[in-house]
């Protein structure tokens, strides 16, 4: 993770590619967002294996979430999550006030409708990381004012 620029450019290109190669009839977001999320899933799984190969086992779910917020986020985005909230019943909200992949897009409301595309990959990333740590989850993201955004993680008890 020497430099952010290659990853950011590649990420933007992946999104462009997915949207362009979708059949011209379906510009609907659903399929494309799912494809991006699945990509993020695989990447997240591999990344977390690599990052945790020397760390001790995690005590509980909260510890796992804290790891994601600090070390994992620092590794990928060079900064930590700004705010982590939970209801202690399996829902966690990670807030990033200056999300790296959005800060070049706009600082406010312009281009808001494009924002979900840029968050899908990261949602998959978090979901993949959690899944390889043994936690099944659903991750969604919402953005109201760029570049701040919130990732909501819902743990699935099986």
């Amino acid at each position, binding site marked *: 993770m020497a430099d952010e*620029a290659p990853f*950011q*450019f590649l990420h*933007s*290109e992946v*999104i*462009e590619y997915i949207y362009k190669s979708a059949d011209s009839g379906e510009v609907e977001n659903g399929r494309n967002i799912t494809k991006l999320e699945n990509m993020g899933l695989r990447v997240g799984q591999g990344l977390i294996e690599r990052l945790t190969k020397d760390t001790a086992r995690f005590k509980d779910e909260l510890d796992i979430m804290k790891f994601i917020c600090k070390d994992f986020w620092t590794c990928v985005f060079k900064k930590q999550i700004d705010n982590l909230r939970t209801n202690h019943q399996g829902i966690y909200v990670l807030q990033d006030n200056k999300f790296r992949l959005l800060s*070049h*897009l*706009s*600082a*406010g409301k*312009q*281009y808001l409708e*494009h924002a979900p595309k*840029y968050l899908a990959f990261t949602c998959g990333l978090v979901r993949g990381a959690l899944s390889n740590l043994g936690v099944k989850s659903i991750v969604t993201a919402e953005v109201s004012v760029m570049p701040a955004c919130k990732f909501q993680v819902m743990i699935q008890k099986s």
Partner: protein
Amino acid sequence: MTVHNLYIFDRNGNCLYYNEWNRKKQAGISKDEEYKLMYGMLFSIRSFVSKMSPLDMKEGFLSFQTSRYRLHYYETPSGLKFVMNTDLSVSNARETLQHIYSNLYVELIVKNPVCSSAPSLDSEVFSSRLDAFIRALPYYSPRAA
């Protein structure tokens, strides 16, 4: 001490961005014609300067001055041209233009996937940061000289 206006041209001559801060007199022609005039002049001056230079040239055309204003020019290796008109008290704006390129343009436009290389730059954050940057320059003051 002031900055009058700023143009950004791409390598084909399209004006990507224009903004003015303290311009007292307009050119009397439409904006499109003004951009073409500016670009044509720059193109001619650059080739003139390189042909007529009595020594080996390093940077080429940098700036010209009149009795009321000075025009500063900065061209990037990728063919992007930054042109800034300031008053006479500013002798060298090259670093400013270079900063505008590397910290504002590259960060906010090049890295912005939604701003494809269309003939114009729509990014609001670029406009507002550029505006803030110009106003914060040591040689900028709201009252024109």
